[in-house]
């Protein structure tokens, strides 16, 4: 079972939920893998404190032009949609940061002047956090595209009973890449106007991707009741409500696992874990229209 922990708004508690779930499930005897797909700002390691066993650079292909074989036909520049390769009189210019690695230029190059070479765009680290198998990626500073790295991080995830994918915030490409192919998405939100607005966007995203999902309301009791009302109106399953608790926030600020320190928090997370692993959970609701979008 592969579960993605995602959210539209940042800072709602994805990493708290994901790391504590991983720890709890492992304590219950399940084999667990934690995969941090927030390659721009990964934080899971601060809480799980894994022993990193392998760290290797990973990257993407981009075109390298052998000028001696180039016939200046210009097809490479024509097929490229990203202006990453430009054919000028007497010269072909390549802009690696703009390249999406589609491979089009090397396919259209008849004289075979284009070869794809690897460019490092980040790092992939794997290790063990107690019994939890740990994977995360780190995007190099200044790199714009995180989705290709996320794809590689997910590909490196080991087999396990429960694979927890910690997603970056938002609703665009990096999030789509993170949640794609998972069995279930838990959308973590907070009961505030910002939290609800971004939850609606995230619900739109998982529905477009036809993924089954549920909602975790973190810091319940902190804002208003609109989020519960929204979920009820749209038939969205609330997987857990985690009450606002200063002790949880303090534990988080120190990099601790709140499950170990706050029993009430642990009870909620155990309930959430049981809900997620329950095969008889109510059928995924993917087709319900959403009138107020």
């Amino acid at each position, binding site marked *: 079972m592969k579960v993605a922990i995602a959210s*539209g*708004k*940042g*800072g*709602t508690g994805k*990493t708290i939920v994901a790391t504590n779930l991983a720890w709890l499930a492992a304590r219950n005897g399940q084999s667990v893998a934690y995969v941090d797909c*927030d390659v*721009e*700002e990964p*934080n899971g390691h*601060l809480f799980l404190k894994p022993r990193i066993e392998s760290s290797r650079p990973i990257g993407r292909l981009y075109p390298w032009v052998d000028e001696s074989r180039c016939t200046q036909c210009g097809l490479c520049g024509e*097929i490229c*949609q*990203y202006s990453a390769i430009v054919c000028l009189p007497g010269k072909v210019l390549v802009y690696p940061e703009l390249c*999406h*690695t*589609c*491979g*089009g230029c090397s*396919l*259209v190059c008849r004289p075979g002047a284009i070869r794809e070479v690897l460019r490092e765009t980040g790092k992939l680290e794997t290790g063990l956090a107690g019994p939890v198998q740990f994977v995360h990626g780190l*995007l190099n*500073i*200044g*790199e*714009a*595209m*995180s989705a290709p790295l996320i794809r590689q991080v997910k590909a490196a995830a080991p087999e396990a009973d429960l694979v927890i994918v910690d997603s*970056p*915030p*938002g*609703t*665009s*490409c*990096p*999030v*789509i890449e993170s949640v*794609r192919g998972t069995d279930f998405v838990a959308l973590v939100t*907070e009961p*505030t*106007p*910002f939290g609800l*607005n*971004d939850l609606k*966007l995230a619900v*739109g*995203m998982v529905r*477009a*991707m036809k993924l089954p999902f549920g909602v975790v309301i973190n810091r319940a009791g*902190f*804002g*208003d009741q609109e989020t519960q009302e929204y979920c009820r109106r749209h038939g969205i399953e609330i997987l857990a409500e985690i009450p606002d608790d200063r002790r949880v*926030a*303090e534990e*988080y*600020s*120190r*990099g601790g696992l709140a499950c170990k320190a706050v029993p009430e928090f642990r009870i909620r997370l155990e309930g959430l874990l049981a809900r997620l692993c329950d095969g008889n959970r109510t059928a995924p609701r993917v087709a319900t229209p959403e009138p107020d979008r």
Partner: protein
Amino acid sequence: MNDIVKIRRAVAPPVKELTVISGKGGTGKTSLVASFAALCRRSVLADCDVDAADLHLILEPRVVRRELFAGGKRARVKAGHCIACGKCEEVCRFDAIFFDGPGNGVLEKTFRVDPLACEGCGVCAWFCAEGAIEFGPVVNGEWFISETRFGPMVHAKLGIAEENSGKLVSAVRSNAKRIAEEHELNLVLIDGSPGIGCPVIASITGTNLVLVVTEPTLSGLHDLERVADLTRHFGVPALVCVNKWDLNPEVSERIEARACERGLGLAGRVRYNRAVTEAQIQRKSVVEYQQDGCATDVRAVWAIIEARLELRTETPPKGV
């Protein structure tokens, strides 16, 4: 353009840009930007968090202009043209081609492009010998010019599960700057997105000042380091503000010490206060909602930013 407008523009002070980012999400960027807008009143607002925009919830903009945004292209198999040769699947590197498209009268199944997985490279269309694949621009979202109680605002909505957020950010930013010039407003206030990737890069390159809003947690400290690397990489000056600092004074101090070591300036601290959420629920900025408490802190932070950007002609107050 007539000469008078040209001359006026030549003597008008240049438009400055302030970008508020955070690295880690949920540290209070948008709440601060709303307060800055209330305090400045001579700015154009640009909500560059295009895939989870929230500023409109506080500023309640009245949309005066609406534009479709087409930032990329997409492939689509034309019904009845595909002969199921499989070339498209072979050349696609994004796992966007599926063999579950509608039949063509002869074959039961043909190929189909998954619009969510399609990267818009067009390689499939190029190599399709049957010309069965359409490849053209696609609308990724919308952007708006609005009026708010604090001045003009440019904002956007990325379509559901769409790409090209960086290009949309650039469109929002350039339009905000143009409006500032037209209205002779001297500041564009940019609300950025979390992370360090494409939309963040698009919102900070060439800006006059970046304000990094962080929180006193180990995650906040860790993410600040990466944001500091990013602002240095793109050569933009940055100030750091620790929001909710009293939740962990010790980590707040570590963050500020680290920011100074990294050559970032300090913009002050804002205390933790439930009034921030209460204000949000009432669709107000914190400085409108309360006079004391953390509103005092926010005003102090704004004074430092104002001085740093030299928005006022008189000399900044002593001690700043």
